[in-house]
């Protein structure tokens, strides 16, 4: 019966943020308690600037310039304080202090990798948090203990594996009740199209699947369902799960119309999934069934990043210098 009703036309964005004056490479919603009274969105752009957008006034309230006009490829807020991490192509990873209207670099880490791999953090409620960054060797990933910046280990694939450069990282840990001591795990998407699960404490590869033909461009993981999704430069989106003793298994492959996924993001309530496509379109899927829900054709150049806010808002940044903000299937 429902099939007879013509599907509704694709929605329009809730609003559009303009003014970065260069391609938007990274997005992050402000998390934590202060997000409630002052919802913010951070964007990193090609020109090396980080914009702080107020979602209430829909204007940029501050611009952070710390990467010497080199492209910013990753921005991430820290849960505990008003702190922001930004990773730039100038090989600096900066930690910004934003509390009380300040915007100063309080710390920075010198990166060794010249690739485009975005870093990843794992922060519990505590003061200490873990950071994964692309390492010195072209195929290495370095794990740092923060804020002390002590190197925990370097994860280097075995000599004969040759997966190429790491392209995207995802830190997570098994839930404490499953295992008495939290074991941080790292998912890495490599250049050869494989996704690898590393056990950080044992510094070894737990599992390895070669699920893409092309380099993996983005991955996200749903620790609640122990399922993740990765997108590559190719035409397919692969859903995999971590079964039993930390082994990866492909659950399904979803063919796309046009090749190239720059980023994937699962909504914090684990209900829908959004992908940023090189074909200028944002695609939305039902996360449990992987049913395609919407194709949002708003941008006129490739979409570089997507991000979800805790309240369900979706933001997408594109090479056309615009950030579109969408409200889809918002929770009642």
């Amino acid at each position, binding site marked *: 019966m429902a099939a007879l009703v013509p599907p509704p036309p694709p929605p329009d964005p809730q609003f559009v943020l303009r003014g970065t004056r260069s391609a938007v490479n990274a997005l992050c919603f402000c998390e934590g308690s202060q997000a409630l009274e002052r919802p913010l969105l951070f964007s990193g752009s090609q020109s090396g600037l980080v914009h702080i957008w107020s979602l209430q006034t829909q204007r940029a309230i501050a611009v952070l310039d710390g990467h010497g006009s080199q492209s910013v490829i990753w921005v991430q807020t820290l849960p505990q304080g008003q702190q922001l991490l930004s990773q730039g192509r100038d090989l600096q990873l900066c930690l910004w202090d934003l509390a009380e209207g300040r915007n100063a670099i309080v710390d920075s880490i010198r990166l060794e990798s010249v690739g485009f791999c975005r870093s990843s953090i794992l922060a519990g409620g505590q003061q200490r948090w873990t950071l994964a960054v692309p390492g010195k060797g072209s195929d290495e990933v370095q794990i740092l203990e923060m804020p002390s910046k002590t190197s925990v280990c370097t994860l280097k694939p075995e000599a004969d594996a040759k997966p190429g450069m790491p392209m995207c990282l995802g830190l997570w840990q098994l839930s404490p009740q499953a295992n008495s001591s939290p074991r941080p795990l790292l998912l890495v998407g490599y250049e050869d199209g494989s996704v690898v699960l590393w056990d950080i404490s044992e510094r070894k590869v737990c599992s390895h699947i070669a699920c893409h033909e092309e380099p993996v461009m983005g991955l996200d993981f749903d620790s609640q369902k122990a399922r993740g999704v990765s997108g590559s430069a190719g035409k397919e989106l692969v859903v995999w*799960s971590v079964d039993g003793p930390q082994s990866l298994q492909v659950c399904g492959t979803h063919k796309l119309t046009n090749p190239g996924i720059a980023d994937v993001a699962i909504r914090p309530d684990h*209900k829908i999934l959004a992908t940023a496509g090189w074909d200028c379109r944002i695609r939305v899927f039902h996360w449990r069934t992987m*049913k395609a829900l919407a194709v949002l054709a708003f941008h006129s150049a490739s979409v570089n990043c997507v991000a979800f806010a805790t309240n369900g808002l979706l933001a997408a940044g594109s090479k056309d210098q615009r950030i579109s903000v969408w409200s889809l299937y918002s929770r009642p």
Partner: protein
Amino acid sequence: MDPAPSAVRLSVQEAIHTLSSSEDAGHILTTLGSVRRYLGEAEDPALAGEKKEFATVHFSAFLRCLISKLSQEWLELSPDGQLEQLWESFFLEGPADQAFLVLMEGVEGSAGPSFRLMRMAQLLATFLSKGRMAALMEEQCRPQMKAGFPLLQETLLSKVVGLPDHLGNRLQRDNLAQFFPQNYFPVLGKEILQALQVVVNSLRGGLDCSVSFVSRVLGKVCIQGRQKEILSVLVPQLTVLTQDSGLWQRVCWRLAEQVPDQAMEAVLTGFVEVASGPEVLSRLLGNLVVKNKKAQFVMTQKFLFLQYRLTTPMLKSLLGYLAMDSQRRPLLIQALKELLETWGSSSSVRHAPLAQQRYISTAILICLVHLGEPELQDIRDELLAGMMEGVKCHLDSSLTPVRHLGMIVAEVISSRIHPEGPPLKFQYEDSELSREMLALVAPAPEGDCSSEEGGPPLAPAVTKAPAEMSVHGGVSSAQPPGSDSELDSDDEFIPYDMSGDTELKSSKAPLYIRDCMEALAVSEDVQRWEAALQALEGLVYRNPESTREVSVELVKILLHLEDRTSLARFGALRQRALVAVTVTDPARVAEYLTSQFYALNYSLQQRMDILDVLTLSAQELSRPGRLRRPSQHDSPGSGSQCSPTQAVSQPGSATAPNWRVVVEERIKSKTRRFSKGLPQRELSSSPNEFSSVAGHFFFPLTRHFDRPVVTFDLLGDDQLVLGRLTHTLGSLMYLAVNTTVAVPMGKALMEFIWVLRFHADTYVRRGLLSAVSSVLLSVPAERLLGDLPDELLEARSWLADPMSSLHALGTHPGTACMEHASSCVARPVLSCGSHAAADVAEKDADDGCRELAVKALLLLERIRGRLLPSS
């Protein structure tokens, strides 16, 4: 004369005498009582011989006497109603046939409404309700030895069947509801069942019976067109009764066989219409079709070839009936052969109405379903020959449904006669017609029919939602059921429209018209070529100046463009681009296109493309207020979806209108208006741009149609293009409304129509008729009369029956128009074709043509009504 009058005769004579003279109630009652002994119901019944004598000889006379005495006073002689009761009992208990005849005689003999008539009618109603009619018929089923019996039966028959008419005539408005035909015949049906039940019982008892009287009743009722009333009672009951009784079946068969020949068709029509399927028909009729020549003719010829009114289920039960018995099967094969012959005859394809062609095709498909593999192999060569012949004629037809019928039937036949060979496959759209036809052959039929091969592989593909197709099964099954604590229903995740999700093209669309032309003409880069084609329409509308510089060249390129890459919307894109150029530079391009229409070395498709482009451009040019939003025009051939390259080159253009609507609505809802003024948006008036160039579009097209060139003969084989041409000219005429050029155009068009009016092809005729309507609509009425009255009259006499048109003209004498008219009509008809074909509105074989002719006539009437409002 009689030497010794019998006791019965004496007592009856005495009773009649008493009745006629006595006024004493007691005397009358005793007299009646004594006569009643002879009916056998009284306490001391008379001897059997006496009873018989009374029944055969004296009963009618006695009843007549009773009728003659009937009056209110006479009945009131005995106040307790005893006399009335006794009086009635004679009619209800005596022999039913005589009682019925006497009653009917009495009814017919009475002059007008009276107490006696009403009383008799009531008695007749009681007679019916007491089941005496069944007794009457049952009596007639017994073997009879009496002389004059056939005559009696004939009379009875006509009275039984004609009862509603007789009573209706006599009683007029006082008629009782029981005697209305819609009530009487179902009752008669029930009575027939009762009579048959008695027949069956007596057959069981070893007695001989004949149902011929019942058959004749049935036949006569059916001839009167009351099949539905009587058979809808009879057939369902018989269906049940014959289910497990062989005797009932035999009685039924006999019943059908005894139907007189002249009534056979009516009865069989009723049976086929009411029976619920071939099994029922087979049980009720048996092998009637083999035994009875008339029945065979009706079932295998009349129903199939001379009529086409049976619905598909009826046709199914008819042909199923033929297929159900080995004796009848040769008839089915014969029928299939003849059907195929008719199907394949080019004259029937050309002249038979579409509904009949569809009927015959349906019948062929049903036959094919019923025939098994070996039987088909036997007549394979004939089938093949018939099919080849038929496909050719059907594909030649210019009517799409006829072509589809040809394709579907051919596909099915070929798949049945060559089940293992490569299937014949035509391309046709999925329509209601094709779905219905294919549904006939799709399900595997039960019974002895070919179940080894469940129909040809033609079942229409079930369309699945794209979203469901693309999800691979593993995803949802990987999640063990129940682990998902919060069972999120999918109801809140209704997918949005994803039709815009198409593949992107990598190359950039050209930005200048000349680049586009170059890409289209010489580019080897397929993607560039595609992008150029997709961008062209928008470019032309944005750059009218530069388009005008190269318009003819561009049209030349587009006209010769071939679909090199199987681009999905190639046809639409090319057409829209052509229309865009034509609209931008109408005069020159139209001149070029019309000259190319009659030029050498074009394919028929290209010529038809020219016509389409001219029509669409004219439509666009004549659209009022088209300059306001030149890029958002809509043409019939274009897909409504916005192409992806356009969306890329103009950010946000695809979604902009939606926003605007939302914004406007918001403003509207927030704004309070104190008064409703003028409507907000007025259509700005602007001149019809088609006006100045209509001649360039129209006249060159009418110029050369009768001059065949080597590859193009409009009056010969290429009638499809001629049909398109007539439609195009009609459209151009219609679009030229309110222009000065309309009058000469109308004149030229009427001449064109006149030459072709008896064309054999339906599509061409349809085009001509719609062109007549366009002329009537576009040319102002005054000018119609002033400038082309002759053409008008000729058209009229072509459209309508010559007699009726004369009559219509004669009703308005004295006006200038009509004087002119009569002088014209008196003239011999110019270039007379066949007078037989002169009235399209009534005699054309094609429904569409008739409808168009009637429309044109109505328009003519309206124009006349407008010119002569006073008369």
